């Protein structure tokens, strides 16, 4: 299905990256502000890009013919 649809707008292309980027900033700053819950927030939001990477790469490998 990907590739046959018409061209995406900049908004569509960058929507997900902007969310991930904003959460990364939250994560980078959170652990500076405090310990405990702030650290946990930092760990969660910085784990997101790692999880997404392995999700997408792993998913496509499984449908490999």
């Amino acid at each position: 299905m990907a590739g046959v649809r018409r061209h995406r707008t900049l908004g569509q292309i960058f929507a997900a990256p902007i969310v991930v980027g904003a959460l990364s900033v939250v994560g980078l700053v959170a652990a500076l502000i405090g310990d405990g819950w702030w650290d946990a927030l930092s760990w969660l939001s910085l784990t997101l890009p790692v999880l997404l990477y392995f999700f997408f790469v792993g998913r496509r490998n499984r449908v490999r013919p």
Partner: protein
Amino acid sequence: MICTLFMLLLCITGLPLIFHHEIDDLLHSEVKAAEVPPGTPKADLDRLLANALANSSWKSPHFLIWDRDDPSTMFVSVGEQITSDSTKNRFVRMDLHTGAYLDSPDVTGRFTYIMLKLHTDMFAGLPGKLFLGLMGILFCVAVISGVVVYAPSMRKMDFGTYRGHRPRIVRWLDIHNLAGILLVMWTLVVGFTGVINTWADLVLKAWQFGQLAEMTAQYRDRSLPTQLTSVQAAVDVAKQAVPGMTPSFVAFPGTVFSSKSHYIVFLKGDTPVTSRLLKPALIDAETGKLTDSRDMPWYVTTLFISQPLHFGDYGGMPLKILWAVLDVLTIIVLGTGVYLWLRRRKAGVSVDRAVAQSSAANASAANTPLTSS
């Protein structure tokens, strides 16, 4: 391209540095400080200092440094003379409660030290640092230009597309795009704070000739005092002058972090961010009285904030592990970037063309050198 190779060096040497403390613990044994019940008073610093110097062949103390990671030890940084280069100093580890000598390991042969030197200046001093800083700036520019070319590259594809069944050039392009765009903020922050860290020596000089010179204006023409007052008393005066903060290190008169006439006690706060923002208290080393204490100017504060954001050492072990994983992913982005660049050069066409050709080749089930994976 050259910048990418240096960034690979920085990412690879940076990886063990994230865990430098754990690696040192594993590879090198050190004398542990005595186990004491909580609330045990600290040893008198003058006695501790005298003990340290008695166990060192060099006799000029430059700095007293409270160990950030181990609340029961302290480092005494000793130079051959007070005027010698502090970066060549020897470190004497002392027990903060008993005041006893622990050990004075030579760190310069350690794996982590070699990685640190390769990572910060490639054994080339300030020029090496500034050169790596320049590479860091080019890296940040490359990341931003990567974001710019991400848009046309993704015009026909969903976010996260990975064409796992296609030739390597297509797969690696997808990996490069996916990991690159996911890591943009982290690589920009770690990259740029790394650049700021390369300017640390310049920031120190700017502070010396700026705020420090201002605070010590009336002492400008004095020479080093022949007899120093008690360092313990100086620390006590500093603690009183700046309530709510604890001492992080003391710079002795005549060192790069002080004037010729002052102990400077650098104090830190107790949250992750305020523990990095050191505040100097200047104590006259002849009278033992407080001369001045001010917040650091913005350019020093910027450097202080940049340090944890570069090192990733401010959110416990999980953050360090995340730092390492993100670093490895950055190495993948750089590696696939080098590969795509080489393929483009070899083929004499853009990656887009190569991908298009590989699609055509895929369709006709042909196997040309360009598409073989």
